Each structure stands twice: as C-alpha cells, then as structure tokens.
C-alpha cells in the first residue's frame, strides 16, 4: 500500500508521539525543541519533495487523503507556522513544566491541520479539525498558573465544543441528504436535491458554524479576542496563523467543491457575512489598548477579507484567498511572535508599553512596523500583493457581469483604510513618541530564537511583497488543484 501521499502527516505524527518519549532520555528543553523542529523540517522536506518531483496528485489508497498542490501548499504553510512557533517558544516557555507535551501538542495540532488540508471527505476533515482543536485547547491552557490562560481555555473549549457539535450535526445532515460525505460526490449530488433545498441550507449553515468558528467569522467570532488575549502568545500566533487557516481550507473544500452547484444560493449571504466580519473586526480594533487584542480583532477583519474568495468563487479569487492566507500567516504570526518576544524582555502587551520602542530596539520597532504596514496593505509589502489579487477578484467578477460583487471590493478597501488608523497608531507609539521620563531606556537584549523567527517573517513579508511572482504561481496551482 502506497503511503507516499501521507508521508508528511506520518512523519510529523511519529515525531509528535516521539517527543515525550525522547524527553525521558534527554531533559534539555533546547534539544526537545530542536528535535521537534527536525520533525517539522523532515515533514516539510517530504512536502517539498512532492513539489520538486512534480508528482501532481497523489491519493492515499481509499482516496480519503490526497497530496496535491493545494494540500501541499497548505501543509507548507502550517509547517512553517509550526516551525516559527516552536522556534519562538524555546525562550518563551523556558520556565514552564511539561515542555515535551507542549511541543508534541503543537506537532499534533499541525498534523490535524495537515489532515484537513489533505482530506477529501467531510468525516476525515472533521477528525482533522478535532485533532487540532483538542490539542490547541490544551495548549491554550498550558500555563496552569495563569488565570487568564485558564479562562481563555475554558471559553475556547466551550465555544469549540458547541461549534464542533454543530458541524457534526451538519455533516450528519449532509450525509443523510446525499448518502455520501466525499466532497466530490456531494458536489455532484447537491445539484439534484431541489426538493430538499431548505434542508440543504440548514446543513450548510451548521457545517459553516464549525468552520466559521475556526476562522473567527462573524457571528462565530466572539471567542477569538478573549482566547487570543488570554492564551500564551506563541499559541495565539499558532491559532491566528495556523488553525484559522485550517478553517479556510475546510471552507474552500466544503463550499467550492461540495456546495459549488448551489453557489447562487449562498454567495450573497457569505458575501454579506464577509463584509460584516471585516467591518466589525476593524471597528472593534480601532480603540483597543491591548496590542494582542487589537491584533485579534485585526485577524477577524483579515478573515473577512479572505472570505471574499468564497462568494466570488472564481479560480482567480481562490488564488487571491490562498495568497492572502499565505501572507497573513507570516504577517500575523510574525506580529504575535514579536509581541511574545517583547514580553520576554518585560514589555507588556499594552499598546502604550510600546512608547519609544524605536529607541530601545530598532530591530523590533522596524519589524513590527513592516508587519503592521503589510497587514494594512501598504506597498510594496506582501500584504499589499495578496490584497491586490484578492480585492481585484470581485472587480473581475463585476467586469464579468455580476455587479453586486463590486461592493465586496469597496467594503474591502474602505476597511483597509480604517485599519490603517490602528496600525499607524502603534507605529506612532514606537517611532514618534519619546520614552517617558524614568522609563527604562537601555537597549533590549532579545532572545536569539524569537528574534530569528521575527526576522524570518519580516524577510518573508518583504520578499513576497517585492517578488510575488513565484508565490502567486504556487497559489494559482493550488487553486487549480482545488477545482480539478
């Protein structure tokens, strides 16, 4: 039996299991981190091999899991995120116990995401989501002494439970309506179910709840700010950059393969949801005092942008969506990791704590500026490049004839203009404002690993921004693979 399709998942899963075992032999936490990094690296290698060999679409025997350009790309994204998070965590969780479990959980969560990316079947997808959810519940609660962490975990868990229940129920309905759970077959069959339209809608919405919960899509978003704020920042980074993206993968698969036949039924509604999502996220972010919470809301807004790809639903739009997911992983992940980094050198997560940061660490101030401006979509940064593709897709649709799509683009640009306000505010604190009297002013000594993680993100953001061609290609192939 050919396992080549699931090498990446297998490798990572094995490492995930191995980490605690290794911990019994080697106590050194750095080694653990290195070990898990190696796992991530190997798994990445496996994916990259697939791209290098160009072995198109590889199917795991019964066809529940595939490795193609789409899943491969997302596996890379998830693995990169995991890599950065682990890299950043080395210092961040130094003083905690159970490091082995921490790393192994991160790896497990990643495996879950990869399963989602690879799945061709609702059930498998559900399992993948659950694996990720369960491990991230634990990760959010990882700091056992931290009240906020515990609260965040509780909320995350309860909300996650509800939404997964919804999803499961929805899936059961889909199964009941079509007698199958494979996206392809569902996609073929939904077109024929005119009698059960309403039933189908119910199923669609219920499934959407679970995915919407992951991507923090309004009205299933309310957990996100609290959890993002309460969780250990590295984990927040993973949630924002990893599991959120997993939600999108699920949505792409479900809506654009499974429900494409009845797109006309849901596209406007999803469009409305996307607009509401981006608007609400941005508005709420406007006057936050905690940078983590601000970033949380901003990532709700970003989710709104990416959701655009669904109602537009063209290959070009999906390319844009995937591209923005890709860049957002770096921007948001980088931003949260930067916050975490500063936390390790006793700079709180109040925005006001960043006053005159440029004086104390030019590198951090510059990196955060780049990341935030990229989030705001200022050229020539990655965020701009991806937004260009994403926002232009509804215009393409409009020019092609469906006028209502233009409002998506309009809402998009208005929102990114609004978002500029709170991003620029942080920048102003860091660069324009001077340090308060008596505030510590010595230069910061940043932990190497975290700095490296941040640096990687910044470089990626600039690099993708200036030379997006290759990445756009990747996303295009992925989109094609999705629609294939």
């Amino acid at each position, binding site marked *: 039996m050919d396992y080549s399709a699931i090498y990446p998942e297998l490798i990572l899963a094995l490492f995930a299991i191995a980490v605690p075992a290794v911990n019994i032999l080697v106590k050194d936490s750095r080694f653990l981190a290195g070990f898990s990094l190696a796992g991530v690296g190997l798994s990445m290698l496996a994916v990259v091999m697939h791209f290098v060999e160009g072995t198109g679409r590889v199917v795991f025997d019964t066809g529940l899991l595939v490795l193609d350009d789409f899943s491969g790309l997302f596996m890379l994204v998830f693995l990169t995120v995991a890599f950065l998070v682990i890299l950043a965590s080395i210092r961040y969780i130094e003083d905690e116990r159970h490091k082995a479990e921490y790393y192994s959980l991160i790896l497990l969560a990643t495996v879950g995401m990869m399963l989602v990316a690879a799945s061709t079947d609702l059930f498998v997808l559900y399992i993948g989501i659950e694996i990720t959810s369960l491990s991230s519940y634990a990760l959010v609660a990882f700091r056992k002494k931290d009240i906020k962490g515990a609260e965040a975990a509780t909320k995350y868990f309860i909300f996650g439970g509800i939404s997964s229940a919804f999803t499961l129920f929805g899936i059961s309905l889909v199964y009941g309506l079509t007698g199958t759970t494979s996206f392809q077959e569902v996609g073929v069959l939904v077109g024929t179910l005119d009698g059960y339209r309403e039933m189908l809608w119910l199923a669609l919405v219920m499934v959407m709840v679970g995915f919407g919960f992951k991507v923090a899509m309004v009205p299933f978003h309310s957990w996100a700010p609290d959890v993002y704020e309460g969780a250990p920042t590295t984990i927040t980074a993973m949630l924002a950059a990893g599991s959120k993206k997993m939600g999108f993968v699920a949505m792409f698969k479900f809506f654009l393969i499974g429900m494409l036949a009845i797109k006309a039924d849901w596209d406007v509604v999803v469009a409305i949801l996307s607009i509401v999502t981006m608007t609400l996220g941005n508005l709420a972010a406007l006057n936050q005092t905690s940078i983590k919470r601000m970033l949380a809301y901003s990532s709700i807004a970003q989710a709104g942008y990416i959701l655009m790809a669904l109602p537009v639903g063209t290959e070009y739009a999906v390319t844009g969506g995937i591209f923005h997911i890709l860049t957002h992983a770096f921007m948001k992940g980088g931003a949260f990791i930067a916050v975490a980094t500063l936390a390790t050198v006793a700079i709180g997560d109040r925005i006001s704590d960043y006053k005159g940061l440029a004086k104390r660490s030019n590198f951090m101030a510059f990196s955060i500026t780049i990341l935030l401006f990229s989030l705001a979509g200022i050229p020539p940064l990655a965020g701009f490049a991806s937004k260009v593709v994403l*926002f232009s897709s509804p215009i393409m649709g409009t020019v092609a004839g469906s006028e209502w799509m233009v409002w998506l683009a309009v809402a998009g640009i208005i929102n990114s203009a609004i978002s500029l306000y709170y991003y620029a505010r942080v920048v*102003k604190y860091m660069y324009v404002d001077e340090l308060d009297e008596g505030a510590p002013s010595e230069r910061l000594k940043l932990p190497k690993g975290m700095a490296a993680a941040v640096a990687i993100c910044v470089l990626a953001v600039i690099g993708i921004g200036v030379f997006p*061609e290759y990445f756009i290609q990747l996303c295009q192939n992925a989109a094609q693979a999705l629609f294939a």
Partner: protein
Amino acid sequence: MELPILSLLLLFPLIGAVITFMMGKNPKLAKISALVFSAIPLVLSLLMLTEYVQTAGGYQFKESFTWIESLGISYILGVDGISVPMVFLTTLLVFLAIIFSWDIDHRTNQYMGLMLVLELGVLGVFIALDYFLFYIFWEVVLIPMYFLINVWGGPRRGYAAIKFFIYTHVASLVMLLGIFALYFEAASVNGFNSFSMETINAVSPFFGNTFQVIVFGALFFGFAVKMPSFPFHTWLPDAHVEAPTGGSVLLAGLLLKMGSYGVIRIAFPALPDGAHEWQWVMVALAILSIVYGAIMCLAQKDLKKMVAYSSISHMGIVMLGFATFTELGIAAGVLQMFAHGLITAVLFMMCGVVQHKTGTRNIPRLGGLAAKMPFAATFMMIGFLASLGLPGMVGFVAEFSVFTATFDAFGWLLLIPITSVAITAGYYIWAMQRTLFGPLTKEVDVEHLHDVYWFEALPLAVLSGFIVLFGMFPALVLDYIRPALGAVIGLLGGI
C-alpha cells in the same frame, strides 16, 4: 548600451536613504550624505533634460522588464514631455529642501532619509509607465510624509498626520479599484493581462461608455483628493500648518502635482469618453476650487494656512486648464503645475523663515519685517508677486493661457474664475502690508530678529532665479510639454 538614467534616478535616492538612516550617530554626516544623494538625481535629471529629444514626442529613455508575469505586471519606466519638467522639479525641490532643512537637529538622519524616500516615491510616480508600479510609488510617498509631519510637525501634528495619511489613502484605494477595472476591461479586449499604461490606454476606445463613466469617477476621486480639489481639500491646510517646512515644500511642490499628473497621464488617455462625461463636473470643481480657495485665503490669520489655501486655488487653475480638453488648456495646465511647484516652494520656505525668526506665523501679530530682514522681505515679495501672476514670473503665462483656453472653450463662464485674479492679489498684497510693512510689532522679538541664513537664502535665491528665468522664457518648459500632448489630445478627440 547607454546608461538607464531613470532607474538610476530611483536607485540613488534609495541608496542614499538607507545610508543616511544609518548615520544616527553623526547628524552632520547624515546631512552631507543626504545632500550628495539628492544632488546626484538633480544632475541626472539635468542630463536627461539635455538628452531628451523635444520634437520626438512619445516616451523616451524607456526601460521595461517583466516583473510579475502571472498578473502582467512589469517594471516599465519612461518619460515624455509632461513628466520631464516634473522630474526636474522633483529633483530640484528635494535638493533645495534638504539644504533649507540644514538646521534640523532632531533625529537629523531620519529626517533626511525620509526626504530621500519621498523623492524616490515622487520620481517613481512621474516616470512609472505601469499602473501597478505607478500605484506602488503613489503609496510609497505617503509613509515618509506621514512621519515627517508626525515627528517634526507642529502642536497638532498627530491629528494632521493621521488625517493626511488616511484621507489620501482612501482616495488612492478607490483609484486602485479603478485601475483594477481598467486592467480587467483591457484584458478582456486584449485577451492578455497587462498593467502597462501604453497597452491599456491603446485599447481605451473599446471601453464601454458606462464603464468609462464609472471608472473615471473612481480615478478622478483619487486624483481630486490629492490635488486637492474642493470639497476634498480639508486635509491639506491641516497637513501644511503642522508639517515642517521641508515637508510642506515637498507636499505642496510635488505631492499635489501627483494628482493633476494622474489626471493627465491616466484618467484622460485611459478613459476619454468618461472624461467627456465628467467634463462639467471637473470644470465646476475647478472653478469652485479657484474662487473658494482664493476667498478662503482672505480669511486666514496663519500665513502658512493662507499659502496652503492658495495652493488649492492654483491647482484649481491646473484642473480648469485640463478640463478644457484643448491643447492650449492642457499645455498651460502642465506649465502651471511646474510654475506652482517653484512658486509655492518659495512661499512655504518663507513661512518657515518667518516662523523661525519671529516665532509666529500669525499675520496680525507680525509687521514691519521688511525693516529688519530686507532679504527675507525681498524673497517673500518675489514669491507673493509670482504667485499672484505678475508678468515676468513663471506663474503668469500659465495662468494667462489657462484663462484664454477657458474663454475659448466656455466663453463668459470665464468671468467667475477670473475674479480670483483680483482676489489673489488682494490677499497677497494685504498679507504683505500686514507682515512686511508698517511698524514693527511688540509681539515680535525685535532685538534677535535675524535676516535669512545662508542655507535659507541659497534655495530661495535659486528658486527666485528660476521663477524669473522661466517667467521670461516660458518656452524653455513649453517646448518640452507641447509635443507630448498630441497623444492625449488625440485620444480626447481633439486635433
């Protein structure tokens, strides 16, 4: 192969900016490096002026490389008679502004670096021939200006900076949507993706009418905010009042030009029908801006705010010239852009000088400066007189021709904007009477009132020289502009 002047024009400010930023330790060195790296583009642009073949028309010094193939985006640079004067203006003003800011002692390296970044952006806007590239430079300009206002600005700088940043950002985003629409429409005509201006503008006749009207609206909004045209102008006075002098000089001298440049370079060629449908809106806004801006100037107590509003009025003249759709009008409009760039630079430098020496820009509190600082007074008068369109100074011919074109195109409608000629004289002469003449006032510290320093006098002198030179020989500029207009006029259905 001959050297890629345009790429070098962009390269040197970039390098210079990086180097200058690094000189946090040594302000003196930072200033010098900024000076050098702004001098090189100036030399290059002079070289370009000589190399450029006026009669040839079309784009020259073209460079073209594919950049983002899958989206049809390429790195295309080129200049024609419209952009050549702007490029020269840009390099000149940045160079002089850097000299003028010689006494900046707070975060000198950052200030100078930002100036160079600004130069990079503005130059890029004027020489980019790819819509995507154009937009990138267009946005790049915002960031240095945001910091210039926000770090070195006046008391309400925070408000002004963010207002400028977001207001113009909204405008450019709307413009971006318009560009997307153009891109896809052209793609559907051509059958292949391309952001190249020439490719898209070439097929503009095939664009549907309603399409053109809507998209022109989007683009024009973007440009009207930048110019700025009534009623989208309110960010300008705030930005100017708070900005440091060097910033104001570049803001009024160059950034506003980007708006009108966009109209002539993008909106007209790409959407001729749209332009025709919008003609009366443009005319109305232009006339409103002219008269409104002029009258607003009368009311201003703050010298700098007055100058800011005068910019609105004068950019309105540019818009009016363009809106005639005649060769005369457009040529005059472009000339007016150039003229306003030179003149307004002098005016804002003078505002800076007054602020510097007397500690206030409040006209009623000033008075009798001519007695204590004759040179400053002379420069101020040159600036004011040039700005009110005195013959022999560069502004006059432009203004005169715009109004000629207006009468030619719209007849007696001219009577409304022409009033501004008198009003403009009114507020300038009145301001002169109250600031330069009469007895010295108590508010001003008479003892330590000092005439202009060398680093202030030098740029002012150079600019004044150019104002008179081009005032006596407008042909020097017009001969670049006129041959280039054929393309635009042709698309607009003229000639």
